[in-house]
């Protein structure tokens, strides 16, 4: 049964439609990542859930109860806002405990909960300080602590790790997931970082320009996106997108020509970076072969992101570091892409096109 439900919620600010008829059901004890670019509507959706704003139309339900117009204090949601709204005159400890004090939770109970959370977030030594004595990252961790301390059935985390340093983000992602599992709580977690979305999510809800594009299990959405925007927005590095023009069963793309069973017109051809292979693929069949020039090599450690120029189109590949030994920016290299990895979409409607056959045109 779904614990949180948005039913056709819309919200506008003046002429800007921040949310447009969004319907989303979130199961109890699940972790759903709201992902999408900045201003996709992720924060607004969470604010509607928390009760900081009311939708123009539509309903918000928690446990089948309509809370659309219920005040925030009556909803009992652990909220970690994007900006660290800490009271400047209170100590970090009092800031973190504030929502519990408001709910008249006993001091001994507050202390019991506070210690492990403060240790996990590495702010135990800072509890006696005031927010002005903390760095940005420390304030953010205090804000996370305040949210997670509530042991609420539902948590709304709005890009909680943005701007924190790399390794801290990595360990907090782990710890937040462990905590979600341990508490059996329902997490709605917004992020605009594609790698964070992939790593955190069980389920993903892809938002773009105020609309819900697609929702589903992360593995399904990654491997079989049904919408152009979810293919583009899920994945790191970002999925390659190339224009294709179909005429009489042949599709011209910057990568080469394909045989397709599609009506004439424009298509968007998408291929994930991991499917852009280095080398000419020997004698393997069903490959598009092309040459490309390396523009920039970004070293991630285990792998390298190659930013390539091929036949006038930009292309990104992500080979293992062992594969790029000796290569440098400016080099020309051979690439092979298996046609079975190409995903075709209608560029206007964004729908996935089920071409019954995609093959390299001989």
């Amino acid at each position, binding site marked *: 049964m779904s614990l949180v439900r948005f039913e056709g919620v819309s919200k506008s600010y003046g002429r800007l439609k921040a949310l447009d008829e969004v319907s989303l059901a979130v199961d109890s004890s699940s972790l759903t990542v709201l992902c999408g670019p*900045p201003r996709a509507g992720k924060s607004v959706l969470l604010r509607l859930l928390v009760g900081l704003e009311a939708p123009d139309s539509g309903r918000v339900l928690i446990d089948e109860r309509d809370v659309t117009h219920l005040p925030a204090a009556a909803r009992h949601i652990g909220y970690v806002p994007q900006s660290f709204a800490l009271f400047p005159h209170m100590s970090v400890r009092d800031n973190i405990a504030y929502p519990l004090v408001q709910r008249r939770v006993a001091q001994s109970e507050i202390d019991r909960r506070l210690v492990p959370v403060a240790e996990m977030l590495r702010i135990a030594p800072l509890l006696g300080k005031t927010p002005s004595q903390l*760095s940005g*990252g420390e304030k953010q961790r205090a804000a996370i602590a305040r949210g997670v301390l509530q042991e609420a059935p539902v948590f709304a985390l709005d890009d909680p790790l943005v*701007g924190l*340093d*790399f*390794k*801290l983000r*990595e360990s907090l992602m782990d710890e937040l*997931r462990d905590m979600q599992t341990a508490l059996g709580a329902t997490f709605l977690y917004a992020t605009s970082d594609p*790698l964070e979305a*992939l*790593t*955190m*999510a069980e389920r993903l809800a892809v938002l773009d320009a105020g609309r819900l594009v697609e929702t589903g299990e*992360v*593995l399904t959405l*990654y*491997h079989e996106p049904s919408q152009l925007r979810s293919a583009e927005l899920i*994945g*790191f*590095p970002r999925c390659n997108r190339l224009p294709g023009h179909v005429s009489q069963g042949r599709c011209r793309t910057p990568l080469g020509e394909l045989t397709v069973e599609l009506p004439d017109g424009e298509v968007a051809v998408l291929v*994930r*970076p*991991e499917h852009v292979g280095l080398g000419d693929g020997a004698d393997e069949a069903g490959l598009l072969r092309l040459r490309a020039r390396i*523009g*920039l*090599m*970004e*070293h*991630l*450690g*285990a*792998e390298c992101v190659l*930013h390539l120029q091929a036949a006038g189109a930009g292309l990104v590949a*992500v080979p*293992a*570091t062992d594969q790029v030994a000796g290569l440098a*920016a400016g080099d020309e290299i051979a690439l092979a892409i298996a046609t079975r990895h190409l995903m075709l979409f209608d560029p206007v409607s964004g729908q996935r096109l089920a071409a019954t056959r995609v093959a390299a045109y001989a």
Partner: protein
Amino acid sequence: MPDIVLDSLTRAFGNFKAVDDISARFTEGSVTCLLGPSGCGKTTLMRMIAGLETPSSGRILFGTRDVTRLAPRQRNVAMVFQYPVMYRTLSVEQNIALALRDERRLSAAERAARVDEVLGVLDLAGQRHWGIDRLDSGTRQRVAVGRAIARRCDVILFDEPTTNVEVHSKLELIRAFNRFRIGGQQTVIYVTHDQTEAMTLADGIVLMQAGRITQSATPRTLYERPESEFGGWFLGTPGMNFVAPTGERDGGITLDITDRPLRRPAGGSDGLRVGIRPERVEVSAQPRPGAVAARVQRRALTIGGQYLLLLETRGSRLRARADSEGGRQLGDAVYLRCPPEHLAFFRGGQRLAEPPQFLSNP
């Protein structure tokens, strides 16, 4: 420009040593990244080189010239900050030209030529007449770089210039950085907490922790041969796994993650930890020679559609990567193999020179 030499440099704030007895040499014309987590002292170290912070003890030499007590402007150093200070009422071009106002020897024509050159290198020619307010944070940061390189200082210091820059713009900035580096004679010191940025930009990385240098090496060496557990953990997404031996037997040490004992290193198993990078752990669905059974406790997607697996075997937990295709075939019961050539011994956080080897061959 001669080398920059740091000689036993310390900066204390009360009892806290932000920089603790650091000696290092930055070679003329090279790019060095100071890498480390928040609070490791990297920014303090750079501010001392810039002359914005006075060392408590130790010396800074530019070649043989002792600059320790010189004011910033006497050092011929340019700096690009996290939040660049710009003249909002001036155009891109005017902002860059302003950096040259103290260069009295330049004629008007030389000044104009210098500005043109910088605009070209940084790909800003199209925006030369734009006001600063029209630029996104990354482009603004490129203007800041432009001001720094226009002066042709011997030394350019960067303080986390991409922290507040969104991903796309960050790449543009890195490309611009690489272009101006081509044939560049300046010595560049670049502070970052982002390992990808450091590995992509740097000739050498100085890895810092708690005010000290942990390791100073090329990006590849630092990644492939970390001298400390900290280094192994800090680089990589996620970092290196570490497991403790389970015991000693017949001149060997036993581990949960290998099917046979390793040759006992000098000093035995006491305080010993064995490290392996997640991408070096080989995971398969079927048993194989040399593999041990493990269970998948958690799986997530990561870079390039790879699977990031949290594995448990006989009481040890470790992370592994599996490629996009192979990872899809894996159920919850898997087999893992840790090739000895990818293992490393650590004791007391430091790497042992001795390479791990199996007692017997498989």
